[in-house]
């Protein structure tokens, strides 16, 4: 894919309004020390549960019962992870406090990846096309249609869920990955709104230069404007991916079997499969960690972008 040579204008990256705010430097007053102490407490409360997941996942259930307050893993073992991933025999699993039910975590992981990727890819591509039409093309009824889309922002998700379930059922897509993805695959009002804002801010000259070179508007969109929009598109994509990955209610409605079960739903089922002896906490925490890991990795790769995007995408 070659970009037209006329495209020399630097891509206008939408930087969040940054007035150079600097913290007011003061001596180590009592107030500042107190403020830092509060901050430290907040960080502790935020992060400690993550450590506790890891510590529990690496312990044995017997060890947890014997020494619940030990800050380190009790009788360190990978048994929890093996159970969560279905690598243990039923007998072994039950002996270690698991439910012994089969759980195909790789399957759920794949389902989650498929659904989230499908939603993110399609939603953002189609929303970008619409956003371009709303921002850059001239057609009758444009503002009316856009107004209608915006009004869609007002409808809370809960309200469309039941009728959407009825529709998906009538389409025969219950217990199907496509059925999970479909309702948000084409657009969300927010995505259209968000990308339209960006396209509106690209100077006309950029587009005109390409048009003068004889490129059609479709070509201009795909070769010029869409590449220029890569920053907001990626930002939106990451947030959409996280949202799709974490969704529970809708997939719970639509999926009934392993074939369409995503990680969030599988995890809740794992939690509900309480064995006779008590909850398999170490297996459950291992499963939790596996379910959360992809988002933590995503965060590791794009932390800066995600953090700044929350302010920029603003009010979602």
């Amino acid at each position, binding site marked *: 894919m070659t970009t037209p040579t006329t495209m020399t204008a630097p891509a206008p990256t939408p930087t*969040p*309004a940054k*007035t150079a*705010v600097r913290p*007011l430097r003061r001596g180590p007053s009592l*107030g500042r020390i107190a403020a830092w102490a509060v*901050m430290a407490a907040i*960080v502790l*409360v*935020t*992060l400690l549960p993550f450590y506790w997941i890891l510590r*529990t996942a690496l312990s044995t259930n017997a060890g947890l019962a014997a020494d*619940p*307050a030990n800050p380190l893993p009790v009788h360190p073992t990978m048994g929890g992870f093996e159970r969560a991933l279905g690598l243990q025999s039923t007998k072994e699993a039950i002996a270690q406090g698991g439910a012994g039910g089969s759980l195909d975590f790789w399957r759920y992981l794949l389902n989650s990846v498929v659904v989230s990727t499908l939603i993110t890819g399609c939603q953002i591509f189609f929303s970008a*096309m*619409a956003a371009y*039409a*709303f921002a*850059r*093309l*001239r*057609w*009758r009824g*444009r503002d009316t249609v856009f107004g209608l*889309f915006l009004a869609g922002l007002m*409808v*809370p998700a*809960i*309200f*469309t869920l*039941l009728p*959407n379930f009825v*529709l998906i059922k009538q389409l025969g897509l219950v217990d199907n990955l496509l059925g999970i993805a479909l309702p948000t695959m*084409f*657009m969300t*009002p927010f995505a259209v709104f968000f990308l339209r804002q960006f396209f509106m801010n690209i100077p006309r*000259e950029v*587009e005109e230069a390409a048009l003068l070179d004889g490129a059609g*508007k479709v070509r201009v969109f795909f070769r010029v404007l869409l590449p220029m929009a890569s920053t907001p598109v990626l930002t939106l994509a990451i947030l959409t991916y996280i949202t799709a990955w*974490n969704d*529970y*209610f809708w997939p719970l*409605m639509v999926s009934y079997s392993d074939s369409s079960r995503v990680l*969030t739903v599988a*995890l*809740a089922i794992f939690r509900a499969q309480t064995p006779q002896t008590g909850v398999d*906490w170490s297996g459950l*925490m291992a499963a*939790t960690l596996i*379910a*959360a890991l992809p*988002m*933590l990795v*995503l*965060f590791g790769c794009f932390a800066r972008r995600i*953090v700044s995007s*929350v*302010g*920029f995408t603003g*009010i979602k």
Partner: protein
Amino acid sequence: MTVASTRPPVRPPRGDGALAALFVAPAMLGFLVFLLWPTLRGVYLSFTRFNLLTPAEWVGLDNYVRMVNDPIFWDSLTVTVEYVAINIAVQTVAALAIAVLLQRLTQSAVLRGIVLTPYLMSNVVAGIVWLWILDTQLGIGNEIVAGLGFDRIPFLADETWAIPTIALINVWRHVGYTALLLFAGLQAIPNDMYEAAKVDGASEGRMFWRITMPLLRPVLAVVLIMTVIGSFQVFDTVAVTTSGGPANATNVLQFYIYGSAFGRFQFGYASAMSVALLVVLSAITFLQYRLTRAGHTDLG
């Protein structure tokens, strides 16, 4: 090129109608099929008796009459409101505190990242983790409670504790996100104002009430509306921690709606309750918008 700089921007030729239709078509399809149609259909279904198996049968206002006379509905509405009140009160204050601390103490992006991490977890993961931490017998939370010399608290198994506990679990997951939204709002306040106030000898507290709060108000209003709408739809955490129990103490509205639809196959009744929820949310949005004068900003 000298001409180019002075002439008004050339409008593209009129009438991109066909192309626009092509570009809007997929999004339009999604909008009509999965947003507009379900909205209308949801209202329609609320006037029917419908169990998915046989065609919907028009029953007029029956579902609404039933709803008004259903003590469980009112209970679940009360529980939901209780949840929302605790969730919003704690979350807003905590998010504001975090945002201000982030702004006044440091510009560290790492700290902002840390604050956001729980947001990456799903509600399901957050629910399960806290279920474990707060476990009566083995949870570290209760170990600490016991270590401090108190009786162990059955956080999620007790009628009084369950809703506040679920509200706080969701605060843990969402407060960072809210804080960053507010932080972004704070960034828009010119630093000169703080400098000037400092020269005048204003304390941090005074600056907070005189500068930060008034100028942040529009952002705060929008964030509030957003979080109220979000928290009214609590479901995931309840589903994995208490399943509505003990004794309906955490039977929030959305959980009751889900149960009516998928547990008892009363889709018509469930739809009527969804309409009620929609009305409540619209009313709150409207009221909040008016009360906080969200449209106005004091910032020039």
